[in-house]
């Protein structure tokens, strides 16, 4: 069981580290902002150009941030469920070991002729 827990902890640490290391920094290119602002102005022609650019930048940044949130949440759920399963297995094993101990103690206490 200990080997399983170590494997789980190492895998989880690797996953989190790699996800943090490789996540692209939140930031959007000027090109994307321009395109989004143009799209916004097509829908809402009365919006001034500055406001449209600000709105587009905010929207794109929020969208990118949320993508990272979903990525981390999904992997967190994955490891969480695996961890929960390992925990239930560990409890089951501990219960069995305790019972085995209890049973062997019963046998040791029993008088010689009643054993076997």
């Amino acid at each position, binding site marked *: *069981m200990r*080997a*399983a827990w*170590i*494997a789980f902890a*190492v*895998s989880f640490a*690797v*996953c989190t580290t*790699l*996800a943090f*290391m*490789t*996540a*692209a920094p939140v930031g959007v290119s000027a090109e994307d902002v321009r395109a989004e602002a143009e799209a916004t102005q097509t829908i809402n022609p009365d919006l001034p150009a500055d406001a449209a650019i600000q709105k587009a930048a905010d929207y794109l940044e929020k969208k*990118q941030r*949320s*993508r*990272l949130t*979903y*990525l981390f*949440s*999904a*992997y967190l*759920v*994955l490891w969480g*469920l*695996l961890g929960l*399963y390992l925990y239930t*297995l560990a409890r*089951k*094993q501990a219960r*069995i070991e305790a*019972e*085995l101990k209890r*049973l062997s103690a*019963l046998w040791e206490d029993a008088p010689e002729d*009643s*054993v076997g």
Partner: protein
Amino acid sequence: MTKMQAGAIVSTLAVFAALTVVFMFLPLEAEMLESQKIFYFHVSFAFTMFLACIVTAVAGGYYLARGCELADAVAGASAEAAFLFASIVLLTGMFWARSSWNVWWNWEPRLTSMLALWAIYAGYLLFRANARGEARRRLASVYGIAACVMVPIVYYSIKLWGGLMHPREGTIFDMEVSMQVGLLISFAAVLCVYAALMALRARIETAERRLESLWQNEGRG
């Protein structure tokens, strides 16, 4: 080194390799960016879940035919893995759906049939947890065989009823090569995790059975 330790080391290495490839070497998908990286493990867990369902049915059938107790332990362990993996697939899928399609859930055929499969294996585990002795093994084997009917229904659901979110089966063959390699490595890693979990669970089941028989002997003595 015990077999369990070896299994843990192999599955850790496989998961490490898969995560390294997915996060460090695979390019970002143009539309979905980082959230697309959910895909590799989501799909791998889905395929492994199908395998776990089939193993449950086959091992159950083998138990009914030959009465081999190990086969029953394997069936039980595999059904637990199938339920766990189905939960992972459903939940990771929800995050992916939210990031890509702006919805947490919708009732398209793949999702609906997948939820039905999840419920069926929950029923299997309930049955198994509440029966005792030989009846438990027999009944669980019958249930496992009946439950396996859901595998083709989930797999072909898009082909049969169409879908808005999921692609049809076999679409992975049309993907970019780098994505295919990433998926293959992730699948191998999840398979290792499945094998390790099965071995661990089957060992606990065997110990439980030994304990049960010891108590019975004690009761008779």
